[in-house]
């Protein structure tokens, strides 16, 4: 096992959410600007004191992070753009933490956000990646729904998971979301409703799919000393992992990169899965949440269905999971979906929850997954955070 440097006293502070809306006439710049302004206000930092920026957005085109510097009047020493979808939060954290750790930047604002016009989704899908354009989109143009239908059907057939198992996850997340002020889904969801909902791509039905929307999420990465000076609650970074294009020869995706790197993750953090108080998985589809539960060591491969049947996943349950509701109930604001879970874990372990709080949450694990470049999610990431003090 490779010994990697820890993160010393680099911390995350100021979890921020720009309220999600279903559709917006604004551009992505508007949401990102809103997140940045909120970060600076909470932190009590003036704009000219910020010297690092990390951006993720699908709808910022033709701009990338660079355009944003001039658009928002920022002069920076460190800049990055993370186009990794649902893994962008974890990856942004890893980049920003090393920058701050080495002194390349003093404080880095990590922001992810997207707008959503009525045709945004279709336009994004059609040109999502070269492989998608050439070898997936022409086949039914169902988007990720079709790809994950394949994965879900395979997983169900291979491991005996049922729709009831997936439904339990969705219902629990909906219950969590009812307390979260920014969730777009505001009604309870029963298992009955989940099971009988409109079919999208068999076996996936309506409540297996996220609702695309507009919004942004963000956080700041800085040295602990600066957080204390600014009197900001903060979370320490115990360990992270990042892996792209894991298991390329698997005929279909039933495991992700976490399976390759999780032992090193826990070793670096000095904790085990049983020590985690709250988990945020990337939940574009419930099957992926089950996959993350397995690959991050919370149960054995193929046994997530059993695990789901045993545990309860609300904030007050035996295994608090996606406690703000996850994307499935809050909404997917484009790249912000990659920040949503991480931001919720920061809120939980720093006692700044907006919705249901997990009692005595000291250790949280946020997982990221994304970029269905062709037939599988290429990016996987995870971070174990601990309460600051």
């Amino acid at each position: 096992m490779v010994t990697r440097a820890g993160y010393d006293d680099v911390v995350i502070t100021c979890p921020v959410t720009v309220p999600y809306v279903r559709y917006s006439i604004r551009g992505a710049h508007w949401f990102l600007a809103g997140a940045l302004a909120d970060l600076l206000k909470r932190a009590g930092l003036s704009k000219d004191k910020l010297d690092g920026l990390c951006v993720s957005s699908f709808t910022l085109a033709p701009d990338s992070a660079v355009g944003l510097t001039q658009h928002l009047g920022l002069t920076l020493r460190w800049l990055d753009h993370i186009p990794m979808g649902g893994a962008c939060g974890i990856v942004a954290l890893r980049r920003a933490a090393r920058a701050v750790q080495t002194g390349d930047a003093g404080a880095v604002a990590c922001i992810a956000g997207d707008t959503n016009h009525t045709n945004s989704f279709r336009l994004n899908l059609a040109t999502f990646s070269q492989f998608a354009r050439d070898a997936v989109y022409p086949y039914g143009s169902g988007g990720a729904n079709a790809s994950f239908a394949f994965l879900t059907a395979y997983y169900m057939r291979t491991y005996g998971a049922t729709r009831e198992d997936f439904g339990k996850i969705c219902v629990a997340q909906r219950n969590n979301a009812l307390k979260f002020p920014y969730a777009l889904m505001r009604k309870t969801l029963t298992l009955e409703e989940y099971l009988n909902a409109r079919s999208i791509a068999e076996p996936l039905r309506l409540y297996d799919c996220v609702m695309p929307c507009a919004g942004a999420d963000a956080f700041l990465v800085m040295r602990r000393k600066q957080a204390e000076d600014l009197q900001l609650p903060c979370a320490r970074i115990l360990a992270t992992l990042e892996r792209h294009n894991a298991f390329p020869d698997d005929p279909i995706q039933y495991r992700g990169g976490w399976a390759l790197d999780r032992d090193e993750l826990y070793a670096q953090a000095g904790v085990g899965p049983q020590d985690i108080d709250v988990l945020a998985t990337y939940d574009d589809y419930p099957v992926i949440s089950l996959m993350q539960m397995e690959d991050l060591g919370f149960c054995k491969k193929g046994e997530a269905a059993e695990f789901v049947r045993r545990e309860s996943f609300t904030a007050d349950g035996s295994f608090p999971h996606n406690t703000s509701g996850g994307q499935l109930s809050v909404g997917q604001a484009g790249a912000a979906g990659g920040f949503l879970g991480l931001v919720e874990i920061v809120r939980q372990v720093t006692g700044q929850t907006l919705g249901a709080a997990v009692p005595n949450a000291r250790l949280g694990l946020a997982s990221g997954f994304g970029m269905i470049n062709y037939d599988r999610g290429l990016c996987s990431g995870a971070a174990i955070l601990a309460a600051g003090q």
Partner: protein
Amino acid sequence: MPTLPPGPRSRVALGLTAGAALGRLELQVCRDCGTVQYPPREACRVCLSQRLDWRAQDGGGELVSDTLLRHSNELFYRERMPWRLGLVKLDCGPVIVAHLHADCAPAPARVRVSANLDRAGQAALVAIPEKDTPNMADDRQLREMTCDPKFRKVLITDAKTPLGHALVEAIVAAGADLVWAGHAEPWKKPPGFERLASLPQVSLVPLDLTNSRAVKDLAGEIGGRVDILINTADHHRNFGIAARDGVETARTEMDINYFGLLRLAQEFGPAMRARGADGQSSAVAWVNLLSIFALSNFPPHGTYSASKAAGLSLAQCLRAELAPAGVRVINVFPGPIDDEWNQTLPPPKIAPKRLAADIVDALRGGAEDVFPGDIAQDWVARWRDNPKALERELAAHQF
């Protein structure tokens, strides 16, 4: 304008389309390590070699997962819900997403994968059952990609030639609802023509492709109902340059083989464009009987070759103009047909019945460039391999 499946592809992905145009599943194979690649790419996914060659594959594979799509982001598919899709692990290596035939058993199951051209004129991978099932061609999704004459109305522009005659019979046998059999030169009565006219599906229509007004009038009458147009009109004489004085013969070859196509396209094109890919009753195909001589001039039939080359170029123009309507232009390049114009050529020649069957197969399949018969296959292989060498071989009359 009718809706179409998504069209844009990267250039490297057009290699798949080139294979599908010939009715073949071709995938990239690394020359250095042998790995078969999919999706199409610029370098080997195993050894990074940039020497990737498109090679035919047999398409056998295992259906790993399947789904029935009930929601789509594209209008074309929304109009055709639900739509069956499959994820297939090919025996040759890659995992592919394919349209899934209704008769394929749910995963896990053995399937065969082929590359068809879809309505947008791009390659589409289709997984069909390992063994043929009854009425397999009637699959709703497959019919969206093929131009099967079954239940359709077909115009054959010259039904009086041996090929035209055989084609009328073949199209009727393939289940067409109605076949308009075009004919010119009313004084010419080939044997069996009267019998053809008496078939219940057949309607004789006068059609002289050298007469603009006649073409326009016929289009006015039937143009709005033609689903498949097969242009079999062909004026074929056996002269190069020196063997004939004056341009009269060559002018007539051009007037039918090139201008005839232009007149047809101007008069029948607009209605077919408007009815393209139009659900159940739609214009789906335009077939041009070209000639292998169109690719590389055959000097003993030099002016004829030139007229077919002109027809080929114009057919490519027509293909581009009909593409937005999802109407496929199929170009057929037979070698010498076993008829009076090729009597002096030695065998092998393609029998009109065989050629007619190949045309029907092309309509049922997913190809758009068809090379029926041994000569055509040989000729096009030589042409693709080294067109300059073929030019020399033809000049030396090595055929």
